[in-house]
């Protein structure tokens, strides 16, 4: 039915590009390491310098894997939101999901002094950031969904999402006012986004939550395709709308919430990747789109991260700046090239 041949070709090309980008990403960095030494380090060949091996194994590979998870995860959550709301402009960011995550993290980082003592020590572990961020984003998204049941107009839901973002920003401002400079700096750096700084253990935690989100997404593929026709048709096809919606929301908050907690609120990937993928694959069928978004999200994120590294220089750009600089023109270009943006 889906003329699998032509899609297989694109998938193979994407797989090759992905592998190339992954290796390129590992090869590039502040310290220039020759290609053969990179390979040697990966193969745990002891002939190479131990400091280089340390950089590759404990810094660059975790970062590249993080980029993989972040790009694909945000792409998927953007896709889920666009289909659920039948709106091409929807994405985790637009609906205030990452503002919710920001609020959660802000309360933990900036508000930790308010809770005081031993409790704050518990609050400042990386685990607590993940939990705070996930809860924050889940609550905001749940609020948006509750509103969406009452309000039929999708535009209104988007505006309400923006309002949630304003409210959370206001609360973050208030928290900032009562925080120390050190806490504030920590929060600001978190909000710049960063793919580094993740140990293998933290990466494991991220992967587990990411996988839960991904599995829920795979179970939602059938309902996502039904939802393309709108709620009424979907219901007439035997779909339990409330359950399907709930699973999609949980999947989105698992993916976007955990990613935002570990890597900060990364802009534009969630919006740009689904559209880029829909353009390449020219379909709305989620059986194709879900795997396709996984590939193109990973690739785009690896490229953005490689740019952010400013290879051979000792500086690194905030990843958020790079994704915005790459993502925004992509969206503008898409809008100018095509008259229609598909859900």
């Amino acid at each position, binding site marked *: 039915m889906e003329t699998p041949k032509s899609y297989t070709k694109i998938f193979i090309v994407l797989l090759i590009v992905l592998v190339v980008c992954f290796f390129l990403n590992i090869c590039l960095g502040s310290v220039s390491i020759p290609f053969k030494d990179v390979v040697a380090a990966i193969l745990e060949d002891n002939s190479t310098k131990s400091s280089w091996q340390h950089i590759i194994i404990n810094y660059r590979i975790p970062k590249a894997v993080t980029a993989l998870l972040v790009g694909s995860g945000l792409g998927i959550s953007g896709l889920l939101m666009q289909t659920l709301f039948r709106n091409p402009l929807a994405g985790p960011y637009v609906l205030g999901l990452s503002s919710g995550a920001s609020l959660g993290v802000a309360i933990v980082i900036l508000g930790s002094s308010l809770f005081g003592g031993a409790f704050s020590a518990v609050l400042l572990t990386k685990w607590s950031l993940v939990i705070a961020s996930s809860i924050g984003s889940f609550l905001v998204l749940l609020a948006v969904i509750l509103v969406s049941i009452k309000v039929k107009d999708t535009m209104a839901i988007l505006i309400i999402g923006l309002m949630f973002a304003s409210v959370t920003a206001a609360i973050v401002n208030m928290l900032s006012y009562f925080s120390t400079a050190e806490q504030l700096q920590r929060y600001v750096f978190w909000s710049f986004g960063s793919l580094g700084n993740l140990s293998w253990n933290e990466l494991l935690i991220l992967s587990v939550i990411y996988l839960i989100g991904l599995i829920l997404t795979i179970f939602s593929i*059938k309902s996502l395709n*039904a939802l*393309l*026709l*709108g709620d009424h*048709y979907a219901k*007439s096809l*035997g779909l339990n709308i409330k359950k399907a919606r709930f699973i999609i929301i949980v999947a989105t908050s698992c993916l976007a919430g955990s990613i935002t907690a570990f890597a900060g609120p990364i802009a534009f990937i969630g919006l740009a990747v689904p559209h880029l993928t829909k353009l390449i694959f*020219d379909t709305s069928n989620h059986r194709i789109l879900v795997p396709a978004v996984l590939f193109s999200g990973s690739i785009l994120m690896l490229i953005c991260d490689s740019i952010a590294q400013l290879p051979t220089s000792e500086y690194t750009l905030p990843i958020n700046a790079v994704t915005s600089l790459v993502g925004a023109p992509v969206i503008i270009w898409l809008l100018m090239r095509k008259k229609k943006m*598909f859900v």
Partner: protein
Amino acid sequence: MKKESEHIVLKATDLSVGYQSKKQTHTVAKHINFELKKGELVGLIGANGIGKSTLLRTLTKTQQPLGGTIHINNQELTQINQLTLAKQLSLVLTENVSQTNLSVQELIALGRQPYTNWLGTLSATDIEKTAASLDVIQINELAQKKCFELSDGQLQKVMLARALAQDTDLIILDEPTTHLDLYHKVYILKLLQKLAKETHKTILFSTHEINVALSMCDKLIVMKQDKTHFGTPQELISNNAFDDLFPKDLVEFDADSSSFKIK
């Protein structure tokens, strides 16, 4: 054959429809009675705002009836779960699907969802039924086209094919001819007539094309302010059911030509 033709697919008994909020109940129409048999083409007509859409929404379980009962294949509607209902009743709605970048074939295959597994994989039967409904509606040449490339008339045929692929005894259509020109209006209704005859599906549709509906439907449901009539076109005309369908200042029903005339 006789037994089959007497099988009642959709039955409404003393049905009243409308809206219920915490404070008050707003009844739109009441005392609705009809029985649709297998293979019948039935039109639902009435003035704007008389409650056609409310009745259709109630029949399709989108909203609850205020009173009375609905039976589909002798089973009460409230007792049928959503998935089972999807195998007995398919819909063609006025909702716009042209925002979707699906091919016609993919869209029609979505009609097989009640039968597919958790991932929506199409079985051989599903592919066969999809192809068969493309054949019946005669839109094979559109199969690989994208939905947003279609004209309104083509899109309506595709949506009908999708409903057909769902393989249900009953198809309900909400104003299927609204945006179409006269030729395509008649074309779609002829198609519905053919489907009812050849595939023995029961088809209920709401329409404003009274003249066309009178000449093509087996039975009609006529909704008016105080009463809802049900019967064959001849019965309804001889009972003067159409005389007060609209306010009498602009149009009147002419029984001889069985059509409405502008005064």
